[in-house]
Each structure stands twice: as C-alpha cells, then as structure tokens.
C-alpha cells in the first residue's frame, strides 16, 4: 500500500530528515525557553532563532527562483517587507484602537465611531503630520483581510512585474537590474511621508499582539518560533514537491537553456511567472511572521542591499539544493549577529587590532568571493562531495 505521499517521501528522504531536524530543533528551543522550559535560552534568543527560521524560508524561495529557475531576483526582500507591512498594519491599527478605546472609556460622553477613528488617525499618523487614516488602511481593522493581503499584495506585484518582464524576454543580468530597480522604487516610495505607511518611521510596536496583552513576551516569542518553524517546514515540503516533479525538470531546463525548453513546446514565460509569484508569496509569508518578532519595520529594510544579501546566503549555502539555502541563511545570519554582536574576541594582528564589528563585513565579502570562485556550489556542494566519497 503505497500512496503518492509515501512514494514522495521514499524518493526524498531528505524531507523526512529535514522535518525531523526541524522538529528536534523546535522541541529543543521550547524546552530551553523561559516560557515553558528550564530557561537557558533567553527570550531575545528565541526571537533571534525565530527570525532566522524566517530568513531560511525566504532563502528557500530565493533558491527556487534563482537556484532552480535561474532568475537572479534582487527584489525578494521587497516582497518580504511588503508582507511585513501588511500584517504590521493590522497589528498597529488594532493595538492603537484598543489603547484609544480604553483611554476614551473615561470620557464624559461615550465616544462615537468617528471620534475613535480620528483619535486612531492622530495616534498613528501624527508623526508624519497627518490625522486622516489613508485609504490603504481601509481593511486594517480586519485580521483575515490583512492576512489575505499578505499574500495578495506581494503576489499581485510579482504577477504584474513578472508578466511585464518575462513577456518582453528580459533575462539574465538585465532582469536582475530590473528587479533591483523595482526594489529601489518601492523603498523610495515607502520613504515618503505621504505614502500612507508612515514614511521612514515605518510601523512599530509590532511585537505587541492586540488583545494578548496579558500573555508575556516570552510566550509570544515561542509561539512565533513555532509558527516560523511550521512555515519553514511547509515551505520546504512545497519546494521539494515542485522541484522533484516534472515541473522541477522544466524549470531546471529553463535555467540551463531557456531557448531549448521553449523549442520543446513549453510556455517558458508561464513557468517563470508561476515560480516568481509563488516565491514572492513565500517571501511575503516569511516577512509576515518575521516582523512581529522584530517589532519594527521601516523602508530601509527593503533597500536593494538586503536582497543582494539574500543571494549571498543562498550562494554560500549552495544553490539548487533546498537544504543548502536553509543552511546558508541560518549560518550567515547567525554568524553575522554573532560577529556584529561582539561575542567573538578581538584579535591583535601586528599593528592592527581586528575588531570584528568593523571587520566582519570585510571577512564576509572576501569569503563570499572565495566561495563564488572556488566552491561555486557552496556548502551544499561540499556535502555532495562527502556523499560521493561514501558511495565510492
């Protein structure tokens, strides 16, 4: 009795291994957390771990679109940020509404709906000199709609942008530059005070979940860690399902020789568009889980450089392997916070005192060049080599 799922799992033991490791990691984090366990992992560490899992999820998306489909998108952090903004709108609006309502409860007259709206508007937009709630916040009161927008807005942007770009056969580095331009345009737009999303102040206080004031942050952080882990597991399985099927072969074919796949009768643009939109949505979901843990989102997070770092993670982890992306994102972002956090002791090299906070980026840049030159398959390539040795 072998169902398609069992068949899939039999063919891809890495899925089971990954899910097993991920569950073990989450259980370990839960036991170590301050909320339920013995408390040797601090709440801020739990948040860092949860955020890293979100990075792993967007890295999977990047690996799908770049490693498998050959589209070096320098814009996936824009989708990540948009997802964050969409959920952030609900978090900020609802929390402000609750605060406003409780503060108005003591007024002489019970507040009218208009008065509440005005007070919320002043609270949220006073910082950019406004009091009106912009039209794009029309659904901010409703969690289901904003959750739908987390998927819809970045998805639509990716659909329109991808359709335009793939239709006119912009490929290779041109496409990369075009996606980078899109990201820059979005970031610049959000930087404006009248963008309706609070300009460069961004959205803040997102770590406070409306209506859950009585739940301590240590618990909330753990819930979000679980949510991140669940999303990552799901993303991994979906990615595997795509790449291990016929579709995976087609998109790999597009990566290796687009013209040939087209001559075989496949509609290349549709495949590319599907992957582009799907990965944009994955990135957006990652962002929507990430920002409530980070607590604040502002346009600087969307700047093109973030998306290039994403490519760096995937390249170091190894392209064309879903687990490689996860390893790369986890390793580089953890190392990055380790080095810039000052945990690594400084080294005296002759006259130069190597302060890692200052030299980490130099190290990262150089090691990145080295990886590109000497290990183009990244860490995943090393694992492959070890496997080959074993089977010999």
């Amino acid at each position, binding site marked *: 009795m072998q169902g398609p799922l069992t068949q899939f799992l039999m063919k891809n033991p890495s899925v089971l291994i990954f899910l097993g490791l991920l569950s073990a990691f989450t259980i370990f984090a839960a036991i170590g957390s301050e909320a339920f366990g013995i408390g040797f992992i601090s709440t801020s560490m739990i948040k860092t771990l949860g955020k890293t899992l979100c990075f792993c999820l967007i890295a999977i998306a990047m690996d799908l679109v770049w490693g498998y489909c050959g589209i*070096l998108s320098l814009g996936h952090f824009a989708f990540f940020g948009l997802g964050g903004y969409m959920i952030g709108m609900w978090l900020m609006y609802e929390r402000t509404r609750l605060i406003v309502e409780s503060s108005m409860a003591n007024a*002489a*007259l*019970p*507040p*009218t*709906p*208009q008065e509440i709206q005005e007070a919320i508007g002043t609270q949220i937009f006073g910082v950019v000199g406004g009091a009106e709630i912009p039209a794009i916040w029309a659904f901010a009161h409703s969690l289901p709609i904003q959750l739908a927008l987390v998927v819809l807005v970045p998805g639509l942007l990716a659909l329109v*942008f991808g359709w*335009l*770009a793939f*239709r*006119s*056969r*912009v490929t*290779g*580095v*041109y496409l*990369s*530059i*075009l996606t*980078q*331009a*899109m990201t*820059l*345009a979005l970031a*610049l*737009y959000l*930087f*404006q005070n*009248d963008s309706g999303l609070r300009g460069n102040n961004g959205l803040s206080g997102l770590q406070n979940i409306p209506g859950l004031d009585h739940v301590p942050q240590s618990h909330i952080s753990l819930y979000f860690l679980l949510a991140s882990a669940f999303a990552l597991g799901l993303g991994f399985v979906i990615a595997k399902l795509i790449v291990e099927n016929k579709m995976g072969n087609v998109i790999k074919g597009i990566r290796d020789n687009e013209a040939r796949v087209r001559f075989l009768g496949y509609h290349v643009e549709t495949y590319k568009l599907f992957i582009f939109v799907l990965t944009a949505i994955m990135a957006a979901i990652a962002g929507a889980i990430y920002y409530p843990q980070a607590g604040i989102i502002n346009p600087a997070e969307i700047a*093109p*450089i973030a998306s*290039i770092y994403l*490519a*760096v993670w995937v*390249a170091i982890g190894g392209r064309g392997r879903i687990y490689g992306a996860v390893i790369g994102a986890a390793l580089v972002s953890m190392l990055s916070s380790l080095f810039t956090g000052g945990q690594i002791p400084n080294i005296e090299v002759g006259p130069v005192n190597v302060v890692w906070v*200052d*030299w*980490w*980026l*130099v190290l*990262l*840049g*150089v*090691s*990145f*060049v080295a990886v*590109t*030159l000497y290990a*183009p398959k990244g860490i995943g390539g090393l694992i492959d080599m070890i496997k080959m040795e074993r089977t010999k």
Partner: protein
Amino acid sequence: MISRFLLLLACFLIVLPTQAQEGTAPSLKSIVSQNAPDIIKGSVRTAPPIIDALVALDDPSSLRFLSLWQEKDLWYRKSDEEIFVAEKREDRTYELFDIATLELVETLPKKQIKQIKPNSGLRALIDEALVISRLKSADMSVRQEAISSLSRLANKQHLLPLRGAISAEPNQALKAEMERLERFLTIQFGASSEERVSAIHRASDDLSVETRANLNRVTSSTMALKDMLDDDANIARHVIPGEADFSVEDAYQLLIDNDLAEAIPTASERTQFLIENIGEGKVGRFTLHNLDTQKNRDAAYLSLVAEGKAPFWSPGLSADILVEQFEFVEVYDERDAQVTQAAEVALEKIETSVALSEFVDVLLDAISLASIYFLAAIGLAITFGVMRVINMAHGEFIMMGAYTGFAVQQFVTNYTLSIIIAIPLAFAVTFFAGVALERLVIRHLYHRPLETLLATFGISIALQQLAKNIFGTQARPLTAPEWLDGALVINDVISISLIRIAIFGLGVLFFVVLLFVLNKTRFGLETRAVTQNRQMAASMGINPNFINMLTFGLGSGIAGIAGVAIGLYAKVTSEMGGDYIVQSFMTVVVGGVGNIWGTLAGAVMIGFLQKGIEWFNPANTLAAQTYMIIFIIIFIQFRPRGIIALKGRAAGD
C-alpha cells in the same frame, strides 16, 4: 519741478508737528528748544516727529545732534531745560557746549544738570533715522551698510534724502543699488500715481525676489463684503466662496465679523454643551450610553436648543447657503487703482520671465545631473557595456577615487595643485585596483555573468567596510579650488555653480576621448574584437587576457576620476558608491548596452526625466526618483535593448 514741490511739502509736514511759526525756516535750535520737554522725556511715542524733523533739516549739526542723543551724550540744565552737549572735567564739573555750534557755553557742577537717557526703543528709532546721514558718508563701506539697512526698514521719510544721495554717489555699483532702492521706495511711497506707475514700469525688468516682494506689497489685498465697502474702494475682483483660496469657512467668518451671521457651533462645541448639561447620567431625556453615535448626539443637542440651554443649531444649517446670499470681493489695500493695475501688469510680466528663467534653470539642472550620471556610468559603460562584466564594485571604485582626492588634500594644501595631482592619481589607483580585480576574480568568471555580479558584490561590501575602517564613518570634504567655488549667475533665477560646469566639461571630455579610443585606436579595435569573439580575436594574434585586463582597468580608472569630480560636488563617504550604482546600471541599460552613445543617451534621458518630474512636484524628490524608476521599468518593457540598440552580430547573445 515735482521734487521741488515735494520738498516744500516735506517741509510743511515737518513743520506741522513742531508748530513753528510759518514763514521762518526751522533750524536745529528752534526744533530742539520747542521740543525740549519731549526730548528729555524721550518717549517712543512723541519722539518720531522730532527725529523726522531733525533728519529733514539735512544738515550736519542736526545729524550730529541725533547721534549724540543716541549715544547718551546730551544733558540738560535743570533750571531752564535747555539742552547741551556735556563733557566731564577732572574736577567733577561739566563743560556744556552749544548743540549747533559746539561752542563752550558754561561749566556747571553735576547737581545742576541731568543726562538725557533715551531707552533702547528710541535709540533704535534714532539709529534708523541716522541711516540717511550715513548715506552721505565718505566711507564707502558705511554707505553700503546704510543701503542694506535701508532696504530692510525704509519708510516714507527716507525717499527724499535717498534721492539726494543718488546723484552724489560716485560708485557705480552702489549707485545702481541706490537707484533700485529708490524705485522700491517710490513704488511704496511715491507722491503721485504717475510717479509710482513709472517706478513700477521701471521695476518690471527686475526678476529679483525683492522686486516681487515690493510689488506684492502694493497688490496685497483682503477679502471683503461688497456692501460694506466705501465707494472709492479699489476692488480687485469678485470672488465666489469655495473657489480658489477663499473657502466657505473664510467667507462665513467674514459674515460673523460683520455681525451678519451667528457662529455655527462645531461638532466639538456641541459635544461640549452636551457634557456641560449632563445630569443624573442623562442629557435631557437621552441616557449617556446612547450618545455614542453622531445621530443621537445631534438629537440630544436639538433638545437642549429647544430648552434654550444651547445656541441655535439645526442639522440642515450650513454655511454654504448663508454665504450664497452675499457678494464678496477682493479689495486692494492700496487705494490707487492706477498703481495696483500697473503693479499687476508688472507682476505678470515678471512671473512670465521668471517662469521662463526657471524653465531654463531646470534645463541647466537637468544637463548637470545628466553629466553626473554620465560620469558615474561611463566607466560602467566600458566594463558592463563593452565587456559585459557586471561590476557591482563600480560604485566603490568611484568612492576610491574620491578618497584618493581626499588623501591628496591632506598632504597638498594648495587646492588647485591637489586636484591636478588627484585626478591622475585616482586614475592610477583605481586602474590598478581594476586590473587586480580582473586578474584575481573576474577572469575566472567570464562564462558565469551572474556569479560575477555576486563576487563583485562581495568585493563591494568588503571595500566599503575597509573604507569605513580606514577613513571613519563621517563624511569627508573634498574642497574645490577657489576658482571653482563660485557660480555663473545669469539672472536672479538662473545660476549654475562652476563645479557643475566643470563636471559637464569633464563628461564631454570623457565622451570624446573614449569615443576616440574605442573607435579610432588599435587598442579600441582589439577591445571590440575580443568582446565580440574571443576565439577569433585570439587567432588573429590578439592576446585576449591582456586586452580584457586593460579594458577593465580603463573602465575602473575612469570611475576613479569620476569619483574625484563627484567628491567635489557631493560629500565623500564610504557609502557614496551605493548612491550611484543602481542609477549607473540603469543609465547603461536604458541607453543601450555596448556603446558610449547609448550611455550618453541614457544619462541625458534619466537626468532630464528626474529633473522634469521634480519640476512638476518640487517638494518631493523621493517621489521624483520613484516615478523615474517606474518609468524606466516600463520603458525597458518596450525597448529591452535600450535607446540605442546594437543590431546584428555586434549585439552579441
């Protein structure tokens, strides 16, 4: 003739407050003796006519009297309140001098005299009046200062003395300035309509902000009710509330001010009345918890109105209907219709020329922005455009060039010399950095363009951080030599800084030189051969490795020179490369990859586009950039190969 009449008139005006007998010309002594009590008291209210009278005398002794007054050197004799200039002697007595002749009159002990101490307000008034006397000073800087203070605080009294000073002024520049000031004063305070109108005509060629401010002062207006006006009111136009900048609220406020309407209680005022009338959890017959909608609140308020506890209000009451029953006009504060008419015409003429000049200014701005983009992108046009190597570290080469300039200025303090040294040095530094990059990294990645992008990005972040570690995070200045410091001023609106002109010149120079090198030299021929077909070029005896290395070095070196130029115009920071990299790539892609003409076209298009969008929405440069990028994204949909697309074999792929 007119001026003589004016003089008479002025004398008449002066005489009035001093109540001198008609027929005898006033003198310093007569004015002072008649106003002695007021001078001694020194009140800001009574002093101005005296000061004006003294200034109008326009003789050295009266001006000297004023400055003595201001400097607290005047004393008066307690017995008869006669005013003298006093000087303290060694034996604690004071010598009194006549105010007009400065002859010694007598010596008195301190007990019998008293110092006149004007307060600071009065001293300022006197100072203002003395400005006129300073206009006749032999010292030119004093005159200059007098003119600039006059242009701030001139009033009617200054017109005549100023006219007198103009003819005596030897310095031409100063004279022109005086004449301009005289024009402004005549526009404001001229005696006859004709005089003012002709001054307005003369001013209408002047685009300066001061001229416009002066004319605007003449045409300043207020809104008024037509029925409330005098017959001779100078009406500018009829206005309809709710149109242009006259809102219905403004119109209604005008009605209230004229007691033609009652103020309509606003929503928050009505709420306040409700709160004041809360009794036992109720307002009238409405329980409090029901008052959470505007509809119920209105009903509750109406019940209060019915009981007479609140001012009248009804849901249909709206300012619009009330306002409609009245006729509103805009009235000039200036009564003279001829003058306002002339001023409006002059303003319109000035506005037209200003708009034209602004347009020219925007064009110049666009050209200079285009040349900056061109400079930033031209190196990339070679490495990316000709060699198809994506060099994300291009921006960091620009930065390296700029920091080279900064470093040179640390050792060479002569700015002209330091720039002359910095340009070839920056070229050398970035040339060798480019060659090293090509040898060590890019050579291995020619068949993997996307990975070149990533590897050079690694170089980019490493270089950026290195620069931060070496030079620190704060912006470093790259000082331009003095002869590049000024601006080319064409008129009050159009001016362009010399640095921008120099950058434009440098851009043109680069363009011509590169065009020559790539199209007319052996090296250019070999470069094109290698990039078009490496194997074929190699079989023709060209060393492709060597040519690639040199070409990449050339592109990088040009980025270095661009860095020096950009550093002169903007600040040098470790992050400056990032500001230019995306724009540079877009310039090359939009223009068309593979030729220098394309880069020029791309830079011109992006520069003009950005400035054009900024022109429509000057307050928001971020929006301009956003729209520009969106435009470029759409543009590439229709011309994916850029403005100037190569055709045939040369197009590659």
